[in-house]
């Protein structure tokens, strides 16, 4: 017998108001027609929503997973299952060297090593995990990219999206007059100097909106979220990306890793001893 309020059901009911996404689908279609490209899928909730939206436009859209080599174990099985279930046109591009190799070689996670060797060798995290794999993906699939980056995730992302929206020219048949029209028609599109164009269809969605959409469809989410919820992680900590990097470590990222994946944490801590200082 079920008792009490089922929050997932509540989210699904609330999420039905977000299912009217026709204007968004039209923008995705236009993006894919003009830029081609791929969907960048991380295994997290945001890129899952973007993947679902993109598949409504083109079920065979190329899907690219940038494998850092340091993902949650659940992410890999989830990826396999989702690929089977949705018959995804998936391409996995591994980082070379892997994220773990960079962290270990960098020396910053061990008091007994000299820090900074990574930078001297020229292997920056951004270049290895993002720039280089993205360049490979663009080479294969075209200059376009659909991603789940949202402005609510960080100040930097909010500023980046605000800047591109302010700079965006309006080429609409009927010029956009209101701020809302500008956001709907031109928001979320980032054209880079190298000619690639990233579009975040859900760039201005708040986090509850994302979960409500997932519940309303309903979409299969990465089981890593269930682990995080079970150990008491608050909504702000429900983020699935790399197991570890420099981001969010001062806000307890390693604490959740230690609690939810204790064996994995201890294994990582043998290579990155300072990890224990953050848990």
């Amino acid at each position, binding site marked *: 017998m079920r008792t009490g309020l089922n929050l997932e059901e509540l989210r699904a009911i609330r999420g039905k108001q977000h299912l009217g996404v026709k204007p968004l689908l039209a923008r995705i279609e236009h993006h894919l027609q003009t830029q081609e490209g791929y969907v960048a899928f991380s295994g997290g909730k945001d890129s899952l929503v973007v993947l679902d939206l993109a598949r409504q436009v083109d079920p065979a859209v190329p899907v690219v997973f940038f494998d850092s080599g340091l993902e949650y174990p659940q992410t890999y099985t989830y990826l396999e299952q989702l690929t089977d279930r949705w018959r995804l046109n998936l391409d996995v591009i591994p980082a070379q060297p892997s994220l773990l190799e960079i962290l270990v070689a960098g020396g910053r996670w061990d008091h007994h090593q000299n820090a900074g060797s990574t930078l001297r060798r020229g292997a920056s995290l951004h270049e290895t995990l993002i720039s280089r794999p993205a360049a490979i993906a663009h080479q294969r699939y075209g200059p376009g990219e659909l991603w789940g980056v949202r402005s609510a995730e960080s100040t930097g992302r909010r500023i980046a999206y605000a800047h591109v929206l302010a700079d965006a020219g309006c080429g609409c048949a009927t010029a956009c007059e209101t701020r809302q029209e500008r956001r709907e028609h031109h928001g979320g599109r980032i054209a880079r100097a190298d000619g690639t164009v990233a579009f975040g269809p859900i760039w201005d969605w708040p986090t509850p909106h994302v979960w409500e959409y997932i519940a309303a469809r309903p979409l299969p989410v990465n089981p890593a979220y269930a682990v995080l919820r079970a*150990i*008491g992680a608050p909504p702000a900590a429900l983020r699935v990306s790399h197991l570890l990097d420099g981001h969010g470590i001062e806000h*307890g990222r390693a604490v959740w890793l230690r*609690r*939810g994946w*204790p064996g994995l944490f*201890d*294994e990582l801590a*043998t290579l990155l001893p300072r990890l224990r200082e*953050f848990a």
Partner: protein
Amino acid sequence: MTTFAVEDAMGSMVVRAELASGIAQAAPWAPALDGILASQVWARRKSEEIAAGNYHVRALDRENPVDLDLPLARCPLPGSDQWHWLATCGMPEQVAGTTRVHTWTGRVDARDLEQVAARLPATVSARQGRYRARRMPLLVAPCRTIVWRAVGDPAAVEKLLAGIDAIGKKRSSGEGRVLSWSILADPGIPTLEAGHLHPDGSLGRPVPAPCQDVLAAAVTGGWGTAGLRPPYMHRSRQHHLVLPALLDAS
């Protein structure tokens, strides 16, 4: 369950700590009894060394930390390299709800840096780098008591525990306050069970494969890397083990 011979003064026992409000811990299992006893022995040895004017090196910074002599029996099942004390991790009792998330904050003390460093950069950023300010979650299990089982000398264990008034993380902030300890010898518990399993039969400590082969504990935390004996966090103590039952899974 198998019982084996132990020294005369030793036997199965149940250790219980009555807590003020609960215990803060990072791992999904409460602190191990052998870890608590070893920390007490180590603290005494450290203060003696410092009092004698000797330079003291942290156990974690030593290449091969010594195995302290604890009033506990050793498990006879694993080989010599993977031996461990017969004592479990704690199991919270009278739990009042799910894990609570408290928060602690910390930032580097600039005055302290000036005292300990010969040379400082122009700025030590609190926003980035290794000295960045922290706002961290602290996971607290709200419970009235924690229970351990072990095989050892109850009188000697009681003597060591008497000096401990807080356990777990953030003790100086009031977490893990112990109101009282109770140590009860219980010869009715088979020694192997007392040294490995919680009262509910789930696996109570990280164990190597030979132990699990004999115990066949139904509820475990699966395989993973963990410390086997104190000092638990030292690299030399890390092994691929069967992990104890996870608190959050219950």
